[in-house]
């Protein structure tokens, strides 16, 4: 840094929110009475004093250009008093007290290519991770997978025809920054890391790498006269955790890094407890630019859920009701032995009962 600084940093933390609140929000802050879902992507919130606020929600690419953001701001200025917000799923929301603005918002958003929807019993936007665009450890491109998937799911985003909310996420490595959702698309490696012994000793803190392995498969060893690490391939289960700590543990592979599909995760406490998701398909190819195999499997799962799920029933709740056996039948997916848990708490997932469906 050569330039002389004239500004002294203000460690302000989160941006102040008061000035960011829509006036009707500010006025009725903490005093909302109820809401209704008027149509796809349109909510109506009613305050205790009778004030009404309409919200129009639209999808975005998340990886936005300033051009797009400015266009969005233009719309907000025109129809939403200069305010807007984003949801935790990368949708953008415009609020207005003027009902006539609702249709105008929908029209203008559609015009700039942003689909209106994502609220209520529908497929909302897919949680994004970084992928080849920016991350240092990805095996795929999350944004690309998301775009391809959403192209096939856009009608489910724009309508209210799912039994309940459907959350999806895509993660470009097994770490899964996307979290627990109804359907997750996550990279799964199928080979141990190839180790770059030439550079390992120089660029990695070896004890930290050793400590990172969940199954203690890594140990120090001198290779070609250089201190390095080696992996016990019998123990290694290809998780890639070591790669996050050390770029010389090359886990990514253009062919052998695959996709797995997970279902039934849920964060809300509504009805059933929050739940982790389960593996239901793997060995799907990492097939850019449009990953048709992934879209296909997700489609099968959604079709079955759409058909059989009851109102308000989340994916995992539907499966709990009809049973996993039926889930596999209904989706056409195949249970295999790798789907039997073998990790720390595996035993707690064994069927320790005679409860059985035929």
């Amino acid at each position, binding site marked *: 840094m050569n330039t002389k600084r004239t500004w002294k940093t203000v460690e302000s933390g989160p941006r*102040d*929110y008061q*000035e960011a609140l829509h006036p009707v929000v500010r006025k009725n802050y903490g005093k909302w009475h109820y809401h209704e879902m008027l149509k796809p992507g349109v909510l109506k*919130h009613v305050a205790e004093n009778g004030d009404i606020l309409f919200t129009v929600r639209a999808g975005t*690419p998340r990886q936005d250009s300033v051009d797009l953001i400015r266009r969005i701001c233009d719309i907000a200025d025109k129809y939403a008093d200069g305010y*807007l917000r984003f949801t*935790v799923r990368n949708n953008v929301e415009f609020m207005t007290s003027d009902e006539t603005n609702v249709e105008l918002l929908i029209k203008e958003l559609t015009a700039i290519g942003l689909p209106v929807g994502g609220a209520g019993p529908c497929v909302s936007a897919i949680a994004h991770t970084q992928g080849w665009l920016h991350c240092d450890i990805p095996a795929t491109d999350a944004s690309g997978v998301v775009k391809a998937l959403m192209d096939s799911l856009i009608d489910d985003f724009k309508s209210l025809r799912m039994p309940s909310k459907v959350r999806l996420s895509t993660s470009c490595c097994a770490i899964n920054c996307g979290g627990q959702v109804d359907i997750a698309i996550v990279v799964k490696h199928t080979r141990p890391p190839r180790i770059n012994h030439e550079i390992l000793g120089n660029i990695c803190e070896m004890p930290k790498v050793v400590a990172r392995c969940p199954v203690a498969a890594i140990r120090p060893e001198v290779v070609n006269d250089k201190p390095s690490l080696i992996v016990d391939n019998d123990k290694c289960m290809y998780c890639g955790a070591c790669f996050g700590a050390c770029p010389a543990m090359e886990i990514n592979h253009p062919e052998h890094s695959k996709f797995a599909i997970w279902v039934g995760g849920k964060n*809300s*406490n509504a009805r059933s407890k929050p739940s982790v998701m389960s593996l239901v398909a793997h060995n799907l190819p990492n097939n850019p630019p449009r990953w048709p195999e992934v879209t296909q499997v997700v489609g099968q799962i959604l079709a079955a859920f759409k058909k059989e799920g009851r109102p*308000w029933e989340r994916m995992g709740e539907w499966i709990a009701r009809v049973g996993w056996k039926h889930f596999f039948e209904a989706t056409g997916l195949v249970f295999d032995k790798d789907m039997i848990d073998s990790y720390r708490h595996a035993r707690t997932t064994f069927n320790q009962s005679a409860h059985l469906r035929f």
Partner: protein
Amino acid sequence: MIKANNGNETEKVTASQENTFLNPTPMLDELENGLWPSFISGLKELAERTRKPILRGLLDQLEYSYQTKTGYWQGSLVTVHGYGSGVVGRRSMIKDKIPEAAEFHTFRVQPAPGLHYNTKMLRNLCDTWEKHGSGLIALHGQTGDIMLQGIEEAKVQECFDEINQAGWDLGGAGAAMRSAASCVGPARCEHACYDTLKLHYKTLTHFVSEIHRPQYNYKFKFKFSGCPNDCTNSIFRSDMAVIGMWKDSIQVDAAAVQTWIDKNSIDSLVNIVINNCPTRAILLKKGKMVIDNKNCIRCMHCINVMPQALSPGKERGVTLLLGGKNVLKVGTMGGTMIVPFHKMETDEDVQNFIHLSETIIEWWNDNGFDHERIGETIERVGLKQFLDGVGLEASIDMVTQPRSNPYYKSEY
């Protein structure tokens, strides 16, 4: 520069091929098809307009990644003056091949709680970012940051100073306090049991130094959800989930219940509401809906279905769940309830909460290993030991059932 060589080249002349600034990106162009808004189209438009080489480089490298199914970024330490984190540094491993995106660092910028904006602040941010950086912005990162993606190290300080001047600060990265997320809460949601935005703001302001200077065992995330619907996914995605809760009975507007029934039928009441209550705490008595609040476990379901008729009780506060995280090493962990109920009305309530958080983090710093999330530490040393360590009382609310094995140590 980079030519697609996967034999997939399409004859179709896409819009982008008419541009002159960018190199061909046939694979990426496939992502311009379809109805969902395309980040590729956005990037290309931005690049063509601004003619920024860094964007051409980015697209070239991304195209090459698509062709080779390989990523080419490597981590790199980049910071602003006085901070140890907040910039995620990225240098290209193929800068010899594609020099224009040799560096592509990202600012994690903390937005306002609840992700509220006025257009002025957003336009301002766009302008600054277009000036110094690539013009690509992720709204938002999974943790909740604004991610200003793509800047060279030389421009980092200048750019930061400008956005900081405009009222923004950086978010977390590394073994530090991380940026928090809060649901829209009282701003627009009738379910909010506490002021998520305010608590987010106060808490993160308090921990501002710990965000900027990594000194923990590993990351620590707060998420603030106004009710058990948990719209911030706090349970599996934050170390400390702060979830709105009520202690007394669900508020019932009997007339509105009747209106709902009249509109939706008694069958719907039974099939959709009553039948979905996890503890069967809702009874039908002479055509009326009666809630057995002692057996209600605050799941929100009935309130969600009938927001006009039912609301959380009046005695409100938060419940705290500690230790949520994703899959690394131990498998995904949900946060464990460690404080069933804590008032969150007065400043003192807030201070008590912050104080407890500090005590907990201190305990973790003392007892945790490197790269060990607090949930892992608790699992390793024991929940009882944790409670003793931070001075919390054990309660049956913290477990689904008492232990099923006699393997504990108790001397009398």
